[in-house]
């Protein structure tokens, strides 16, 4: 069933369309990266080179911006790929012949999840590595913490996939799409508020807003943890320029991770995916088709 779902996404040209759009994004991003890197380094600090702290921070800032935008594309693909995987198939009548085969509804649903997850993992990994490759090509910086950051970037669409899979067992395709995108928007806005609150050393209420939205959908929290991983593992630099007197997260502004999600939050995210999938299986098993 997983292979069937993966092949379906492939043959329906979901991957091709996403790939073409992603390529367009990468070309645009690469062009911007090229000119920004050249101009900023030369203008602000002509002495800087790839190993200087300033140049590394600049490269990471540009990488984080790219990752932030890439998260939207990956999240969009995760939601759109799964939004009608049960409800849509019931609406158009393709699920009947599959659901009477000798496989349990759990296997049917988890097969669909695994097929879509495989596609999203490959897509997200290629996207991430392409961004990291472009940054390396233009700035000479190997992204610090590349492997754990890659793992976190892959985790993000899986969170959205789990939410959307649960939704599709009960809601119509349209209703599920609206809910998933709304939840994602809330998580992003909440995460942004949390960072701004932390930067301004503001009231705990602002920060808690982000915490609550992260509990609701921990997609943005995973992104923040990714940024924290990259920045925390950044080398100290060659000492030619800026000393490390500013919190580097501060320089990333609302895209940074002033308020970094803990290990517990990561554990929560993994548990969140497992629990939502279990709920999706439970819900699918109980419904009439």
């Amino acid at each position, binding site marked *: 069933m997983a292979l069937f779902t993966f092949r379906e996404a492939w043959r*329906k040209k979901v991957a091709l369309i996403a790939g073409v759009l992603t390529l367009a994004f990468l070309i645009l991003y690469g062009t911007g990266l090229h000119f920004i890197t050249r101009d900023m380094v030369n203008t602000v600090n002509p002495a800087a080179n790839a190993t200087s702290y300033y140049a590394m921070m600049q490269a990471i800032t540009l990488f984080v911006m790219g990752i932030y935008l890439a998260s939207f594309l990956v999240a969009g693909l995760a939601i759109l790929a799964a939004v009608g995987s049960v409800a849509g198939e019931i609406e158009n*009548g*393709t699920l*009947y*012949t599959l659901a*009477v*085969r*000798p496989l349990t509804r759990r296997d049917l649903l988890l097969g669909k999840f695994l097929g879509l997850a495989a596609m999203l993992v490959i897509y997200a990994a290629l996207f991430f590595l392409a961004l990291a490759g472009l940054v390396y090509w233009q700035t000479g910086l190997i992204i610090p913490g590349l492997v754990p950051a890659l793992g976190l970037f892959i985790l993000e669409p899986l969170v959205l996939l789990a939410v959307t899979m649960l939704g599709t067992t009960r809601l119509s395709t349209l209703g599920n799409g609206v809910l998933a995108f709304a939840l994602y928007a809330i998580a992003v806005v909440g995460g942004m508020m949390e960072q701004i609150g932390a930067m301004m050393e503001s009231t705990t209420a602002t920060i808690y807003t982000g915490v609550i939205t992260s509990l609701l959908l921990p997609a943005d929290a995973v992104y923040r943890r990714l940024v924290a991983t990259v920045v925390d593992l950044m080398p100290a630099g060659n000492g030619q320029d800026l000393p490390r007197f500013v919190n580097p997260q501060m320089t990333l502004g609302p895209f940074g991770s002033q308020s970094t999600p803990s290990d517990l939050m990561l554990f929560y995210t993994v548990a969140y995916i497992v629990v939502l999938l279990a709920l999706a299986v439970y819900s699918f098993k109980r419904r*009439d*088709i």
Partner: protein
Amino acid sequence: MAIIEARSLTKVYGRQVACREICLSVEEGQVFGLLGPNGAGKSTLVKMLVGLVYPTAGEARVAGYPPGDIRGRRQVGFLPENFRLHGWMKGAELLTFHARLASLDGRAARQRAAGVLDLVGLTGEGQKLVANYSKGMQQRLGLAAALVGDPRVVFLDEPTSALDPLGRRQVREILLALKEAGKTVFLNSHLLSEVEQVCDRVAIINRGTVVASGRLAELQDGPATVTIRLGGLTEELAAELRRRYPSLQLEGDRLTLALGDREEIATLVARLVAGGCRIYEVVPGRNSLEDIFVHLVREGEQACG
């Protein structure tokens, strides 16, 4: 031995009763027809029997297992009504996939897929994308998918709805071949002639309730007309019979009237003989399935106001 058994199967959606306490039993090797007007609850009943819809009350067993049990599903094929197949696959590929799901290994699955493509008249069409199939071809492919696992029991919900007369005939031949091979077929159909030609037993369902069931011949032997050629019928006896049988028609020496059941024919003849009539010929009328169907459905509508 009953291979399909339903005991008081009931399905309620909110305040609407789709099926009410349906009891039926189908013996192995029979072709069973389920008839009923649109919205009678036929598809809901079939979906309960194949485990797609959960009953509100009652229970069922198919091939010895509750619907939805994996062991039972290995022995069941299903062609749903208003289905669609995955258009991005090729016909043969889709059937091979279904055969794999039905527990056949790779090579056997491909062979079986080719076999059922031939069976439904789609030889040579297996390499086309399903999306490019005509409606009739998709219906045949759906039937092939139902049969690809070599099931003991096949549920077919309106299998000829999208087919032309030639396609219908071909499906009838497939049904008869399945019957000959000892398979059990549960046929849900609007087409009374189709049911009449292939089914051993039928049930008629109306407003979620089974209103008649039995062997086709038994149902056709139910409420009947009779035509009697006779002589010596007196005015008094004719008036008495008119009171008892309002449908009575007398044309020359032919008396035609509708009876509650065929057993009444003997009573009627005895009364005529006792009244001094000479009986030359008694011809019982045979109900068509359509007559029975229309009669029972109208009766149900009148009862519900």
